[in-house]
């Protein structure tokens, strides 16, 4: 007679759990070893680990702030100012890049030869050069090459363009902010254009034909029939582009915009708390990214096919 109960080693359910346990254990061991190593090295250098420094006075200035800030405020307040500056670029950037990306993506499929090819040139140039280079280009070759503020160029009577940035009637955008925003917008927009184009092309030909046979005008065909279906394909990679844009705001320091990474750098420099500051930055970007992911996933759910 054979024993019908297999040995535990041959039970797939056992392995499923055991392997995961081992993996978790190994990961924990690695974290403990790394932590011990960090502690030992810090102790050797006579440096203590802790976040008390956040309550100390920051003593440095920040060029652009949306909320009130002075050098006598704490490091944690300075970091808030930096975070808000980062968010300001990220939110404005996501908004603008979506418009540019979708427009360029649709224009890529235009029947008009000129429009189609101009957008192709835009997409290929911006997609295929490094972002840092583009930011420096926007900053030095575009904004800092404008005339000094005394002889600013006036556009339509109410926008002033000079080395001091874009002067709108109700507020002024600094050249650092403008260069960063435009750099990120056009760079990410080129990727989004390709995503949108791919999404539109993924919609079955029959849908176009069906929409046209209903007598819809070309604009309405796109708006009512094609684009909503393309969104199902577009949203997931679009989320990645939003995440990229948000994380890429950390290049701000290259062109002098005071984002959170800049504030953290100065904090690190003045306090010497390298590990703590890096941990804080990682946590911040992680939180931002996860928030965007969650929001986009919720949005994604609303555009998916509802199977009834």
């Amino acid at each position, binding site marked *: 007679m054979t024993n019908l109960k297999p040995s535990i080693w041959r039970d797939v359910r056992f392995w499923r759990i055991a392997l995961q346990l081992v993996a978790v254990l190994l*990961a924990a061991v690695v974290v403990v070893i790394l932590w011990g*190593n960090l502690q030992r090295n810090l102790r050797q250098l006579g440096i203590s680990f802790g976040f008390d420094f956040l309550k100390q006075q920051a003593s440095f200035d920040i060029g652009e702030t949306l909320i009130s800030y002075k050098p006598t405020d704490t490091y944690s307040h300075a970091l808030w100012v930096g975070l808000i500056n980062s968010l300001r670029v990220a939110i404005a950037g996501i908004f603008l890049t979506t418009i540019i990306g979708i427009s360029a993506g649709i224009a890529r499929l235009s029947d008009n030869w000129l429009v189609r090819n101009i957008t192709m040139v835009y997409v290929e140039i911006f997609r295929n050069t490094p972002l840092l280079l583009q930011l420096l280009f926007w900053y030095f070759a575009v904004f800092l090459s404008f005339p000094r503020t005394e002889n600013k160029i006036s556009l339509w009577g109410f926008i002033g363009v000079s080395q001091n940035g874009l002067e709108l009637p109700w507020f002024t955008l600094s050249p650092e902010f403008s260069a960063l925003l435009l750099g990120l917008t056009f760079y990410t927009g080129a990727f989004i254009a390709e995503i949108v184009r791919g999404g539109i092309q993924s919609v079955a030909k029959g849908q176009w034909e069906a929409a046209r046979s209903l007598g819809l005008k070309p604009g309405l065909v796109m708006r009512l029939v094609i684009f909503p279906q393309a969104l199902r394909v577009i949203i997931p990679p679009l989320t990645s582009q939003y995440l990229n844009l948000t994380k890429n705001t950390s290049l701000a320091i290259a062109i002098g915009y005071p984002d959170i990474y800049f504030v953290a750098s100065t904090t690190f420099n003045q306090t*010497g708390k390298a590990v703590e500051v890096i941990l804080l930055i990682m946590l911040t970007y992680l939180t931002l990214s996860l928030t965007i992911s969650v929001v986009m996933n919720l949005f994604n759910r609303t555009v998916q096919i509802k199977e009834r």
Partner: protein
Amino acid sequence: MRNSALILAIAPLVFAIAACGENSGQTANTSGTPGSNPAAPATRNRWDNIKSRGQVICGVSGEVPGFSFVGTDGKYSGIDVDVCRAIAAALFDNPDAVEFRNLNSKERFTALQTGEVDILSRNTTWTLSRDTSVGLEFAPVVFYDGQAIMVRKNSNIKSLADLKDKAICVQTGTTTEQNLADQMRKRGITYKPVVFEDVNVTFATYAQGRCDGITADRSALVSRGTILPKPEDNVILNEVISSEPLAPAVAKGDARWGDAVKWVVYSLVKAEELGITSQNVGQFTASTDPDIKRFLGTEGNLGEGLGLTNDFAARIIKHVGNYAEVYDRNLGPKTKLNLARGQNQLWSKGGLLYSPPFR
């Protein structure tokens, strides 16, 4: 199902192994650039490591003419560079036994803490908090500096007060950012700092006219001023907004290594005081003056006490020269910088340089 469980299990394993490799790398503190000698374990055996490596790894800026700069021939020169060369001369009787690594102002302390470089000779200001919370051990000051502001001549800016509501270019990762904020706060002047990470971008932005002023150590302004598009159009304001004693630094933890660096710097000063130069050091070895004999190692065993050879000072002077020679070669009247010695004169001539006795 089984497959996915396996993948789930293996993925962290691979990560764990990769992380372990990284970890063992960290304990040995070899965060070196590929193809170069790994630097020493953090602090405990740095001294032995440098000796067995036969080379000092020296962190410099590489961007500041007169202090550390890579010339067109690919060679490093400058006063910071010469300090490292002097250390190599003392240790190995060969001033070229140095590997230079360019560090920006933000990464410099981490590079020293993690042992990527043995010594930081990179126009670094000696401050209390860097001594304590950053864990540095400073050698004597090699250059007494002060922070200043450079503006365009035609801008009508004559003093700090004229900079009200103007943009000032600053480089991050240095003491300048905080000094500027302190001074402006003290005087109640509002201004707009435009802060960059890269020194080249900072000066380029100023040159493009975005900023009305630029602040840095006076020596750095003079030095970088020489490579601006139109050097003669700029002027440095007379107001000095802080004192910046620039000194080499090593990581805390190896007193022997710290002592050696300290006394190498003092040797440069002492040699000038005694009038010994790279030209006449040969004649001085025959001197009967006990002070000079002890200094050059022909009498007593001061050098051995440091873990060096007794003639370490003689080696330094032979290869690198005394402080005056180093200064003149890099910053003196024959150079583009033409910085007056000012505070960086011997104490006996009204300056601040003073060496404790060699005995």
